[in-house]
């Protein structure tokens, strides 16, 4: 119950955030712009529109994770409003998870808006709504939630600027780790394999949550790809949030 109150307050707060509204409007504009970009492609207009739209959703989700996720706790700590909340009968983990849940709800609404815009643009072109995009969008949402969790964790450990750098690095490494694995197999004669293997197993493999190409190309989705991807993402979010709670629990708020 207390967790829900914190979540609801965070939701109300973030939905009014001008930065987020601007990012959302810009993302919607970009999805509409994909109509023009698609026209420049050579015979792959619908594909380009979908690629462009899904990438815009993913990247703007990352931006929201950076701008809002990092500020989520930092703002409370800087403005000392955390003392007011902490003095109430509410546990620290409830504050942290409540805030995370509130932002997750906001992000869900954003994703729904952007999906509706993408479907509208797709409908103009194809006269049909491509529901096949849903698995990719669900995993994309999980990916954004994971990035928010990382942003939250880093913001508890360092300054907002460094947190943004760390989160972007995690996003980049996460999308490259599949390549690192391929590199180890394809270039067995080259060095640093131990390092690449370590990165592959420790950093999140965000390609597990990336079905964009498969759904846009209408490739047959392997049954395991969505299920295990979802399991992987949710498991990872739990781990990162668990560490964030442990860090916040030990933080001296005096």
């Amino acid at each position, binding site marked *: 119950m207390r967790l829900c109150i914190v979540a609801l307050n965070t939701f109300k707060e973030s939905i009014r955030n001008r930065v987020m509204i601007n990012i959302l409007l810009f993302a919607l504009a970009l999805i509409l712009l994909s109509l023009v*970009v698609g026209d*420049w*492609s*050579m015979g*792959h207009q619908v*594909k*380009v529109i979908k*690629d462009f739209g899904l990438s815009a959703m993913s990247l703007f989700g990352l931006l929201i994770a950076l701008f809002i996720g990092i500020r989520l706790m930092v703002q409370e700590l800087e403005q000392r409003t955390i003392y007011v909340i902490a003095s109430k009968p509410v546990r620290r983990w409830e504050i942290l998870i409540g805030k995370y849940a509130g932002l997750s709800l906001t992000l869900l609404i954003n994703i729904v808006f952007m999906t509706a815009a993408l479907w509208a643009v797709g409908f103009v072109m194809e006269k049909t709504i491509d529901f096949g995009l849903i698995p990719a969008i669900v995993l994309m949402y999980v990916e954004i939630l994971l990035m928010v969790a990382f942003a939250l964790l880093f913001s508890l450990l360092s300054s907002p600027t460094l947190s943004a750098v760390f989160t972007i690095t995690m996003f980049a490494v996460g999308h490259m780790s*599949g390549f690192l*694995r*391929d590199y180890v*197999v*394809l*270039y067995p004669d080259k060095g640093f394999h131990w390092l690449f293997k370590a990165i592959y*197993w420790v950093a999140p*493999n965000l390609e*597990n949550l990336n079905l964009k*190409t498969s759904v846009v*190309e209408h490739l047959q989705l*392997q049954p*395991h*790809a969505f299920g*295990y*991807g979802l*399991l*992987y993402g*949710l*498991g*990872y979010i*739990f*781990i990162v949030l*668990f560490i964030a709670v442990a860090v916040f629990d030990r933080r001296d708020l005096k």
Partner: protein
Amino acid sequence: MKPIARKLVWTVCFIAAILTVVFSQIELNQHREIRFVDKRPVFLPKGKALAALTLGQRSLVGDWLWISTVLYYGRRVMDEDNRYYTYAVQQGRITEELGPALRHPDTVSTNPLLKVQSDLGHLLYRFESRGLVGYIYPMLDGVTTLDPHFIFPHVFGGVYVLMDTGEIDAAIALLEKGYAANPDSWELPFYLGWVYWMYKSDLQRTYQYLLEAMGKQGCRKYVGDLLRGVSQNMNRTEMTRIYLQGLLESTQSPEVKKRIEAVLRELPERGRQ
């Protein structure tokens, strides 16, 4: 719940989450293969539209597209330097992978007078990668629209890619586009002459292009030898050798050099036959 019990429950949950992540990763890895044949379409704006959007950085965008083109080609072409290809061969999967992807090359009609054509067919008419690098000519068209004075992409598509794909008309169109934009270049008509001679068996066009190349500043002496060869019905093998040496001399690309040297190594033996 007592604090110690709560801690225990959370610790178990944390370990369970780690195991879930590791287990899902292992499961996903089992279904993941490194494939040589990569048929993902390439996002490629039309060259003219891209030119309008470069905000005055045409050459820079052209360079970026050129690098993308080289990477695209290197990743997909059947070549022993392509690790994706050699890996598929090692795994014994190459035939299975190529099956649906490969388009069989059109038969090129060879001129019975140019016996050297059939002798060197296995090197100059490999055409193995046709169907695997379907976007290469549109990409090269984009590069050369952005930077029409960048000669090498024309040569790359007109000579080197042609050996792998057999897209003769696309190669000629690219070289002619380059020649129109660089009318002072002696190399482009020289290469055009090569394609018309070797792949089209059109001696009249070859003669015309060599003649044009001769009239340009900086033209090498061997172009004159070739011109004499065409007009005096020179030994065909000898002409091929001069042509290939000219191609070798005029390129900086190690890949192109390697391929031409391979052809030249076989040529003297054939010439003595």
